[in-house]
């Protein structure tokens, strides 16, 4: 490699980035197309793509660090994705002005339930320490959840995994829940998915209707903001 002008290892890093980024985007895209046809809970790109990628990483005997180094930029795009939520919020400002109080009630009740059930159920099953703390912010969408997790003494990257599991479960079983609950307003149906299953839930809610989808997206952002602002107080209680 000497004399080519490349710094030591730069070529390998570039190759790694291109390969793992292409694998991630390719499998995500394939899973998305499949899901558009099948529309089953297990064909969600959030479940299928990671499982295939884990198989690939394990099959090629690559370390998680190498994978992460190659795809970190994709995770970083959650930042601008958060910015993008300003557009639906702005477009739905009339609805927000009318219903913010009702939705805020749902967000506060949901966040409280989320923290209490995570703490209670984890204690019941004998899970403690930083694992239990990492479970607390699982109903908050990822960029927010990782901040909250760090604040209260959890492990942010574990929390990210739990957040995704929450999204997959929530989107999968939320529809069954809709059949059981006596819900008549699109507000309640949207809030259910936005609070319970964040990103994946918003995608699901958009399938039910534009109003449900908008409410879900809005609730998701509200949950994030409320929790990030409440985290320092929560940290004082937990420590």
């Amino acid at each position, binding site marked *: 490699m000497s004399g080519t002008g490349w710094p030591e290892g730069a070529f390998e890093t570039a190759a790694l980035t291109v390969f793992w980024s292409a694998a*991630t985007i390719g499998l995500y895209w394939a899973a998305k197309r499949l899901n558009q046809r099948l529309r089953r809970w297990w064909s969600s*790109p959030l479940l299928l793509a*990671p499982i295939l*990628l*884990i198989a690939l990483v394990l099959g090629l005997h690559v370390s*998680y660090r190498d*994978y*992460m180094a190659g*795809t*970190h930029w*994709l995770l970083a795009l959650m930042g*601008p*994705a958060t*910015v993008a939520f*300003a*557009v639906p*919020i*702005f*477009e739905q400002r009339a609805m927000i002005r009318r219903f913010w*109080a*009702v939705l805020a*009630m*749902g*967000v506060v*009740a949901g966040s409280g*339930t989320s923290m209490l*059930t995570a703490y209670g*159920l984890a204690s019941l*099953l004998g899970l403690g320490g930083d694992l239990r703390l990492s479970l607390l912010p699982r*109903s908050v969408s*990822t*960029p*927010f959840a*990782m*901040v909250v997790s760090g604040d209260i003494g959890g492990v942010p*990257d574990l929390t990210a*995994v*739990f957040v995704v*599991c*929450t*999204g997959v479960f929530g989107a999968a079983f*939320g529809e069954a*829940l809709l059949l059981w*609950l006596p*819900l*008549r*307003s*699109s*507000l*309640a*149906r949207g809030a*259910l*998915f936005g609070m*319970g299953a964040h*990103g994946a839930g918003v995608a699901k809610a958009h399938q039910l209707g534009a*109003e449900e989808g908008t409410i879900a997206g809005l*609730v998701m952002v509200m949950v*994030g*903001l409320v929790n*990030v602002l409440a985290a320092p107080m929560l940290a004082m209680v937990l420590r």
Partner: protein
Amino acid sequence: MSLHATTILFRRRLHMSRLGQILLMIGLWLAGEALVRATHLPLPGGVLGLGLLLVLLFTRRLSVHSARRGAQFFLGELLLFFVPAVLAVLDHPELFGWLGLKVAAVILLGTMMVMAVTALVVEFCCRLSMREGNAGHVRHRMA
């Protein structure tokens, strides 16, 4: 005068170009990150970027048409950005086994309760305010 003309040209370009709008979102996010670093606010940079974009939209400095297509790109591919995060489980081999099942049970049961409580609270508040008659136009249909 020429400055004005360039602004108009820039806006028209932004109006048309999805790539330009995507870059705008990334720029606002980076501005948010820089602000967080400068002020030590306990918020993700993306949230401040979201705030900045809202300010631009509400003050009419930016038309919503100049941001919509970029936003649609990011929101439409939202799940892609989560995929690498899931692979963090590989760093925690202790989760493959009993412990992982317990964690999954906590998440599943907890999430069902969260969704039920949230939906019922919102539904209850909706019916209350309906009775007061100021939410009459909410679309009601059977689930």
